[in-house]
């Protein structure tokens, strides 16, 4: 049991950091700008594909920097020529805009890179074993994931603490004209922040594409989980997103690692494995684990609508 717990925590943290990587950009875009960006995962996918393509020419380490920049630039274009126009109409149009964008990006990726996964792999240096725990190997790549996540956290932290981008955006959401009249270039801040958020998604993709699979379906697969993280953590809260990622990571890993069902632990009590409660009674923890984030999301929102660390409700 101890082993299970230690293991869950360790692996959960790893998985959590991956989640954080993918959702950190959304904390900015959804949490702070209020843009329900359904295309976030698409930018994540672009990050992976760019890194793969650049990597063919420049090698992984250069691509690690180039890809997020390229994705950020695309984000800037999208904001400047698309979202900015839609923004004034409200949240639902924004959402639909990004919805359409997600479709378009996915199709274009499939068009240019094909529908089969591309062979995007970690450089050999990261493929070696760093250490072994409980008989399982951990490669340097996993260490690398942790490092990148830390870097992203620090970057976000700096953006929020060292600049007033967050304040400007929040102010602008209620009174854009007034923020302008106080001397802040609101449109530019929006563009930059959106681009930065996209670049973070891209960086997530550079790493995630290796850890998972780089194919046009990867954005779809990331699906709503990034939203869950951001909402659970509290809109606009970077530490919240981190904590939420870790909670989901650890909890899910733990559920997956144990052999548990109500019937197993309490006894069947004569309840048959059929009917709603019967099935629930016999349901194994592992089968529930994947929907856990959603369960957590619904429960949290019912009892604490602003999420774990959120200051405001949107």
């Amino acid at each position, binding site marked *: 049991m101890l082993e299970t717990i230690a293991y869950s925590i360790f692996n959960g943290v790893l998985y959590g950091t991956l989640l954080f990587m993918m959702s950190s950009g959304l904390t900015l875009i959804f949490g702070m700008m209020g843009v329900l960006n359904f295309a976030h995962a698409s930018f994540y996918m672009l990050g992976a594909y760019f890194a793969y393509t650049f990597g063919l020419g420049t090698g992984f380490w250069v691509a690690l920097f180039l890809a997020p920049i390229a994705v950020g630039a695309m984000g800037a274009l999208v904001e400047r020529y698309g979202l900015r126009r839609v923004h004034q109409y409200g949240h639902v149009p924004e959402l639909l805009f990004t919805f359409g964008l997600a479709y378009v990006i996915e199709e274009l990726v499939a068009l240019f890179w094909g529908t089969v996964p591309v062979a995007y792999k970690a450089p050999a240096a990261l493929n070696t074993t760093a250490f072994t725990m409980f008989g399982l190997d951990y490669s340097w790549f996993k260490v690398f994931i942790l490092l990148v996540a830390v870097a992203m956290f620090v970057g976000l932290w700096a953006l929020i603490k*060292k*600049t*007033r981008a967050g*304040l*400007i955006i*929040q*102010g602008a*959401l*209620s*009174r854009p*004209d*007034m*923020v*302008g*009249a*106080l*001397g*802040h*270039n*609101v449109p530019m801040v929006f563009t930059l922040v959106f681009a930065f958020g996209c670049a973070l998604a891209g960086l997530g993709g550079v790493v995630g594409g290796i850890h998972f699979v780089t194919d046009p379906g990867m954005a779809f697969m990331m699906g709503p989980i990034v939203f869950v993280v951001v909402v659970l953590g509290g809109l606009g809260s970077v530490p919240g997103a981190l904590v939420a990622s870790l909670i989901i990571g650890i909890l899910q890993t733990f559920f997956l690692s144990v052999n548990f069902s109500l019937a197993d632990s309490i006894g069947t009590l004569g309840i048959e494995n059929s009917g709603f409660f019967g099935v629930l009674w016999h349901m194994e923890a592992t089968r529930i684990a994947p929907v856990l984030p959603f369960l957590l999301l619904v429960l949290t929102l019912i009892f604490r609508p602003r999420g774990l660390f959120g200051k*405001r409700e949107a």
Partner: protein
Amino acid sequence: MLKIQDLHAYYGKSHVLRGANMTVNRGEIVSLLGRNGVGRSTLCKAVMGLVPPVGHIEFDGKTISGKQSHEIAHAGIGYVPEDRAIFPGLSVVQNLELGMKKKGQTGEKWTLDKVYEWFPRLKEREHTPAEVLSGGEQQMLSMFRALMGDPQCILVDEPTEGLAPKVVADVAAILKQMAEDGLAVLLVEQKLSIALDIADRIYIMGDGNIVYEGTPEELKNNPEIRKEWLEV
């Protein structure tokens, strides 16, 4: 310092400003009077670029009409809108911080500490969300926020609305202080008393035009003008 020439402004099809002309100089308080809805607030907005101005506006010798409002603010104009426009989600300090042009950088005359000295209530409420402030507190916050940006000219739109008489006096004092510090102050006011009290010069607006210019004394002695353009 601030020079407005033949300024027009429109809301859609309605033509609100119809060729206003005025100047505001350093160190003086200029009051802009007029009936409700003649377009005084619109004039402020047009200067700030919040309503597209048609005409010529010059500040410190540079043309600012046609510029983006953040550029105008950077040129040194501060604006206190009539609806206060505090940022609801943000705390009091955050509101003040947003007034600064660069992070943590205020002018020499008005600093956070000085503000808190003038109006200790804001210090007490430092970390409360600005939208729960009382109406009067919001008004003060809005004014100080503009001052945080170290403007050389400030447009103040109805600052005494909803203030207790005692605080009205405070506001008057602050405005005077600003003028003494060398700012150009354009005060849009409803209440004749304070406008006449502290203003160096007075403009009266009617039908989207400046219809009268003079000193407070002259206006006091000119009941016809008051009757025609200020009362009903």
